């Protein structure tokens, strides 16, 4: 039996496979397809202070080996989350981690404070990188000083594991990573979507109502891998890597590049059972390579 468990900032994950915020709902939509307890963790959809309707339809465009979305943080707000959703998901036998979003530092603080009180939520993931909201969001994520500020303000009120999810739409991911670590982040998640655009040539219009949107899927994997690798060189905190992971081989690549765990995002849409297949595939890889602990692979890329 191989040991698939990883320890991330003191939190024990039964395996390194988790699911990405915004691609897995609150987990319950997947109950028909998989046994959630087989996952290392689930990152639930972004929660903001107030109810948000999100952007207008159309919110999606298919692209070569990927897709653009401009959902825009649609959710019913933190009150609704605590009252309606938390009771429904708290007993899932896996780490339920909440993705926290906002338009202002105050909103991040407000949401983080409330979630701090929810016993069965062991960590939050600050989403300072969503390209689909006009205020805040993207701006926090692309300027190191602002990223550090929102992180350190949330750090003051949030006592459990603080993860910060970075935007890839920056010149230097290492600078961003250092800034949020200085701000008090325990863990870095990356990458969020890359800002992209799709045009319908026949109608001569943008496909998305918001003109631009976030690119995800295998198309972005090479960029995500590079950023995980650069971040792994830049900071010493654990990294959760994602971006275009479709199978166990992709997951291993992220782990070799320096990720202690991975998230499966867009792939869930194509195969809702893929996350569990990735757990099995990682185990098979360890068998084939006669490695006992998956943690021995973290950052184990041979570059000499």
């Amino acid at each position, binding site marked *: 039996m191989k040991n698939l468990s990883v320890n991330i900032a003191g939190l024990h994950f039964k395996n390194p496979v988790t699911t990405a915020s*915004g*691609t*897995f*709902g609150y987990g319950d*939509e*997947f109950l*028909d*397809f998989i046994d959630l307890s087989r996952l290392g963790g689930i990152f639930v*959809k972004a929660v903001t202070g107030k*109810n948000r*309707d*999100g952007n*207008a*339809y*159309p*919110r*999606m465009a*298919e*692209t*070569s*080996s*990927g*897709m653009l*979305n401009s*959902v825009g943080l*649609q959710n019913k707000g933190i009150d609704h989350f605590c009252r309606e959703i938390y009771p429904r998901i708290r007993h899932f036998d896996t780490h339920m981690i909440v993705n926290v979003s906002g338009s202002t530092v105050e909103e991040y603080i407000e949401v983080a404070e409330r979630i701090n009180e929810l016993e069965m939520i062991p960590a939050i993931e600050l989403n300072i990188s969503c390209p689909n909201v006009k205020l805040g969001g993207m701006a926090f994520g692309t300027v190191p000083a602002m990223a550090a500020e929102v992180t350190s303000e949330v750090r003051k009120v949030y006592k459990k594991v603080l993860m910060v999810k970075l935007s890839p739409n920056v010149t230097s991911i290492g600078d961003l990573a250092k800034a949020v670590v200085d701000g008090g982040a325990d863990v870095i998640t990356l990458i969020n979507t890359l800002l992209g655009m799709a045009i319908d040539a026949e109608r001569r219009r943008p496909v998305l109502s918001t003109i631009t949107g976030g690119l995800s*899927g*295998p198309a972005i994997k090479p960029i995500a891998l590079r950023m995980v690798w650069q971040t792994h060189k830049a900071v010493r905190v654990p990294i959760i890597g994602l971006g275009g992971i479709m199978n166990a081989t992709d997951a291993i690549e992220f782990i070799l590049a320096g990720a202690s765990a991975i998230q499966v995002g*867009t792939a*869930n*849409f*194509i*195969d*809702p*059972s893929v996350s569990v297949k990735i757990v099995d595939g990682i185990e098979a890889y360890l068998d084939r390579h006669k490695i006992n602990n998956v943690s021995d692979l973290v950052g184990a890329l041979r570059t000499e």
Partner: protein
Amino acid sequence: MTFQKVVQVLTVVNNFRLNSRHFIIDLHAPSPLPNILPGQFAQVLVDDSPSTFLRRPFSIHSVDFGNNTFRLLIQIKGEGTRHLSKLKPGDSLDAIYPLGNAFSLPLTKDVLLVGGGCGVAPLLFLSQFLNQNYVRPTILVGFRTKEEVSEIEAYEKYGNVLITTDDGTEGEKGLVVDHSIFQKERLPFKKIYCCGPDAMMKAVAKIARMHRIDCEVSLENTMACGFGVCLCCITPTDKGNERVCVEGPVFNESRLRW
């Protein structure tokens, strides 16, 4: 029979052309079918070419629970549907189903079904289902031209069929909303079910409102997941943005903010 959604590799048992743009595909499941209701759809994995990265949604056209098969009626639009049109018996097809809600059972026997283009797809299954519930609907179906008129005999088993073609080569000339049935001052229906292009459904919904007839429409928004997690397929309703793949595809038109 369960109500569970499944992701399954199905076997193509039949694939035949209705005309140059439409084809029908029969799929066989490896185990007893879950419960499927009219209006529900399947998310089909085309292949792994870059232009068909996401699954494609298609309404369930009819179901044969006894033989564990169901049928899709597909119009060729782009890469994905063109590829599906080439599948041969024995090929496999990965599908997630059944997805979405369903048409509601009518509280009346005066029922009209209106379908246009590939929007007729869910109406065959619906007619069959209505019959099982002792309702024999009027079925108004619109086509571009005579060549595309198809499956009329199948519909006639379940109801009284009316036809329009854009060019008048069969049935009445014009769009479905131009049909003489709508010219009457009082329409003899208490429930309309409608499926087709947005513009058509809006026009039918407008007529229904004018005549205070209860009307359900089936939307075809673009989808990424099809089972409620991506929030890409939303439509604005009286309850805010709702997911067409879960709260829909069938909506009572009175709830929609089109």
